[in-house]
C-alpha cells in the first residue's frame, strides 16, 4: 500500500472531526480547525503566527506530535479593539441592549440584500462594531429583520500586503433612515476581490 503524503487538513468548525472539535469546547460554527502533522509543524507555525495579526488562533499539541489549531475570526473585532481602541469607561444607558465591546471603526462596506434573483446592493461605511453586531450606514432604508450580507474592507492587511475583507451575514435588528444595525450569525475573513 502506498504511503500517503503527510498533509495539513483544515475544516470549518462544524465539519471538523468530532475528536478535534472536542479539544475546543468553546468552538462555534464560524470558527475553523486545522490539523498539522508533526513533520510539517515547523513550516506551519510561522504561518499561524502571521494569521494572529487578524484574529485569535489557539493550538494544542497531541501525543502523536501533530498540532491542532483553532481559529476564531469572530473575535477579530475584540482583538482589533485591544490593539487600537483607546480604553474608556462607558456608562451604558438603561435601555442599552447591545452586548460586547463596541469599537468605533469607519471601514468602507458594501452590502447585499434579497435573493440571488432579486439582489439589491449598496455601499456605506461602518460606524461601530462589536463581537455580536455591526452598525453601518446605508444608501436606502433597510427594513428590520432583512437578511444582509456585509463586506467590510478590513483595516489590517495580511502580511501587510494581501487586502482582506470581513464578511458578515445576519439580520437587521435596528434601523434608522440611513443607518442599520446588523446582528450577524456568520463571520469570516476573505481575500478582498477588487
Amino acid at each position, binding site marked *: 500500500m502506498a504511503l500517503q503524503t503527510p*498533509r495539513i487538513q483544515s475544516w470549518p468548525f462544524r465539519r471538523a472531526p468530532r475528536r478535534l472539535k472536542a479539544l475546543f469546547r468553546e468552538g462555534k460554527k464560524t470558527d475553523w480547525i*486545522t490539523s498539522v502533522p508533526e513533520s510539517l509543524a515547523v513550516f506551519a507555525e510561522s*504561518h499561524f503566527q502571521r494569521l494572529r495579526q487578524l484574529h485569535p488562533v489557539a493550538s494544542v499539541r497531541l501525543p502523536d506530535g501533530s498540532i491542532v489549531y483553532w481559529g476564531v475570526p469572530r473575535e477579530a473585532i475584540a482583538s482589533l479593539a485591544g490593539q487600537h481602541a483607546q480604553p474608556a469607561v462607558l456608562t451604558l444607558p438603561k435601555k442599552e441592549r447591545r452586548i460586547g465591546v463596541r469599537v468605533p471603526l469607519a471601514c468602507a462596506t458594501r452590502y447585499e440584500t434579497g435573493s440571488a434573483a432579486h439582489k439589491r446592493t449598496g455601499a456605506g461605511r461602518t460606524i461601530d462594531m462589536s463581537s455580536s453586531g455591526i452598525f453601518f450606514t446605508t444608501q436606502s432604508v433597510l427594513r428590520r429583520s432583512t437578511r444582509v450580507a456585509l463586506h467590510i474592507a478590513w483595516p489590517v492587511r495580511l*502580511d501587510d500586503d*494581501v487586502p*482582506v475583507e470581513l464578511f458578515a451575514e445576519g439580520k437587521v435588528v435596528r434601523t434608522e433612515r440611513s443607518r442599520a444595525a446588523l446582528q450577524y450569525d456568520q463571520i469570516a475573513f476573505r*481575500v478582498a476581490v*477588487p
Partner: protein
Amino acid sequence: MRIGEKVRMTGGPFLGMPGTIVSLDRRRVILAVILESREVQIEVERDWIGVIARRRRSTPGIETSTLTRRAAG
C-alpha cells in the same frame, strides 16, 4: 476547477495563499502550496478556493491575473 489548475485560497486559515490543485472531490480540495520555502499539501474546503483566471490586456506582452471567487458556501 480541475487538477493542475492554479488557485488562491479565498477563505479559511490559509487565505491569500496561492496553490495548485493536486486532487479534488465535491467538497474538498488538496493543494500543493509553498510554505516556508517548502512544498506541502493542504486539504481544505472547496468553498475556500478561488481560481486565478488569466486575461490578456490590450497592451501586447502584458498579462494580468485576477481572482475569481466561488460563490460563498
